[in-house]
């Protein structure tokens, strides 16, 4: 048993943190939010140059082949920096979907471009308020190689070059299809979102040319969501940790009633509660990171637990960080709302808690057979 990052992974973490604190401080994050820029192009180029995007992509496909635990390390740092980058869509979703599809031709064509950051991919799965796991009720359909339907919200849909679209085929099965978002039959409409740095789009497909990646969507999509949720959990934990640090810092500086507010138990225990939730989430996420990289049968249980714990930790940390900051915390110029937005955006990205709750308990039911 070895339940920590390796020294090499810790080096990756330290370098990522250094780069992001230099190139992606909160002023920049806020500036991009004000400009409603869907992502930070300059930073994207930098992280691509540094090879981050290829971390978990195999060397055969132009990546570094460092494995998914290393990508978790980077995810945590991206979350901590609130980095406005399409990493989740392009890597955790699109690249993973391509790998799971088993379509080596398309992998050969697209993975190197994702690893280099030349192309941005995404997953077009959601259809409004339908849970993402509810594949049988999707309305998007492919007929004769042409895809039609409405996907909403599509993460980073307005900047993605292509999407892996989950849709029904002519036989009622669920397939994964590659669609060029720059091609014909695709109408993309950016949406206002809670976190402009996690942009989303509505995409209307009208007979858009679609190439089948895999007809086995019913098997692949849950697994894809499990895998992506682990990486997102690390982003959530990174964000929550940064929020906690921000709240602690303020609680040490701010005075009321002649004392630092952090000396009041109402504040101190609130921060202890935040810390507790974060460490609970982190330990669950460690287990899930192992299961992700090992492709262990424990992944379903571990991913659901990591997802739920990380979502709860980030939501709590974000809202209570505002509260610790008092009135200042509710202003645009202060940082806390950046966490509040991001926590909600990531919490909504891959189904909400009741869906994961059910998956988690299904696994426990299996474990404790009657």
């Amino acid at each position, binding site marked *: 048993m070895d339940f920590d990052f390796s020294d090499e992974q810790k080096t990756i973490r330290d370098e990522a943190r250094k780069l992001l604190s230099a190139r992606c401080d909160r002023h920049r994050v806020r500036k991009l939010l004000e400009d409603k820029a869907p992502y930070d192009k300059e930073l994207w180029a930098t992280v691509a140059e540094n090879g981050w995007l290829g971390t978990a992509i195999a060397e055969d496909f132009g990546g570094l082949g460092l494995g998914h635990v290393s990508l978790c390390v980077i995810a945590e740092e991206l979350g901590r920096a609130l980095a406005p980058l399409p990493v989740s869509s392009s890597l955790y979703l699109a690249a993973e979907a391509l790998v799971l599809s088993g379509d080596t031709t398309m992998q050969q064509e697209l993975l190197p471009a994702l690893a280099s950051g030349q192309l941005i991919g995404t997953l077009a799965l959601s259809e409004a308020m339908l849970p993402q796991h509810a594949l049988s009720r999707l309305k998007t359909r492919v007929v004769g190689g042409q895809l039609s339907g409405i996907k909403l919200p599509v993460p980073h849909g307005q900047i993605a070059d292509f999407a892996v679209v989950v849709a029904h085929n002519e036989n009622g099965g669920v397939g994964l299809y590659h669609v060029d978002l720059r091609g014909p039959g695709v109408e993309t409409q950016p949406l206002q979102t809670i976190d402009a740095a996690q942009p989303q789009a509505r995409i209307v497909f009208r007979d858009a040319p679609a190439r089948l990646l895999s007809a086995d969507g019913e098997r692949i999509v849950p697994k894809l969501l499990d895998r992506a949720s682990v990486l997102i959990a690390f982003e959530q934990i990174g964000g929550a940790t940064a929020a906690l640090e921000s709240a602690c810092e303020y609680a040490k500086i701010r005075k009321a009633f002649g004392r630092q507010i952090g000396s009041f138990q109402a504040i101190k225990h609130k921060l202890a509660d935040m810390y507790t939730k974060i460490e609970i989430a982190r330990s669950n996420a460690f287990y899930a990171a192992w299961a992700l990289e090992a492709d262990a049968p424990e992944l379903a249980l571990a991913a659901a637990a990591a997802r739920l714990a990380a979502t709860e930790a980030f939501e709590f940390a974000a809202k209570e960080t505002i509260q610790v900051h008092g009135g200042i915390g509710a202003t645009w110029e202060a940082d806390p709302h950046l966490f509040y937005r991001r926590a909600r955006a990531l919490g909504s990205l891959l189904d909400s808690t*009741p869906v994961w709750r*059910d998956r988690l308990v299904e696994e426990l039911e299996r474990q404790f057979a009657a």
Partner: protein
Amino acid sequence: MDFNDTPEEAAFRAEARTWLSSVAAPRDTRTSFAIGQETGEFEAEFPAQRVWQQKKYDAGFGAIYFPQDVGGRGGTSLQNMTFMQEEARFDVPVTAHFMIVNRGCCSLLMKHGTPEQKALIPATLRSDLIWCQLFSEPAAGSDLAGLRTRAEKDGDDWVVNGQKIWTSNAQMADWGVLIARTDSNVPKHKGLTFFIVDMKSAGIERRPIKQLTGASNFNEVFFNDLRIPDAHRVGAVGEGWRVAVAFLSGERTNIAIKELMPLIGGIVNLARQTEINGRPAIEDGEVRARIASFYIREAGVRFTVQRMLTALSRGETPGPEITIGKYTLANLVQEMTAFALDLQHAAGAVMSPAFAPFDAVFQSEWFGSVIDRLGGGTDEVLKNVVGERILGLPEDIRVDKTMPFNQVGK
């Protein structure tokens, strides 16, 4: 114990309903359940709100529990609550924000004002005059008594220098209520004095504060040698704290009486439209448990207000129970709206009104809930109030309480 209207109450309710029907359309509570938090663009909405308040005032419903000699109806708080219940059934502007301050100022002036000051009341109740509240400071939020804005006597005037923050309505206010330090040589609660301020005076600068939502409903207000005539002092010199505390407890009560049932109805309807585990979310046990918990707290606060009104109508002094209302509801709204976003699954982060359920109202109320947890006393400050003033628990250790203000932090 009787929850029904008495004949007199029923008559008043009928009168209110008749009048409201004659001037407004009914509200569709299935789709309209925004609770009007500080999220919108207040400046844009303000003119319609003022007109509606003036209309109510002219019909005898704008200042129900104020005595007739200051331009009120001479009715009761219970009638006011009844009117609010009826008003919530109609599609009319929400005037709560600025009227909290306006009414608070009127109550204050009735009790502590000079005849000249009292003359401002009728126009204020009609909202011909708009007031703002100049209390909080960057370094004096929860610890309001730690404020630093100074007022120094100069002849018949006071000369004020300093900065206030979180002032809503400052852009359009005609008058303000101000608390300032007039003596730094005494402990912090003792050196404060209360004033009214003509907001057209020289020496006042307003700067809007951009909130986390992007809107700007609050302001910073700077005083540079602002001159206030001594005639605008309210209460005795050094008695400002007592006056301000009375003012603020009114604000908390107002936040406690927000009408949240429509929001609960909105969640019930949302839960019918979204699904969990292949079935309508409303059938899911967790969803039901959460909704039940929302209702219990909402009803608990609502009926606590009724207990308060009963005491008032019996001529008794209401108990302290309503103190729980402000933080209970502020947290409740944050929890309810976050839950509503959860129910929307991936669409929960969408804010485009055309594509988010119910015009993204849950999304914007979720942002606004942040502010309600802070304004009018944070959760933490109010729990101290409950612990100390209601339960009689010993005070926190207050290192600066008896120290002369100019020695604090030295």
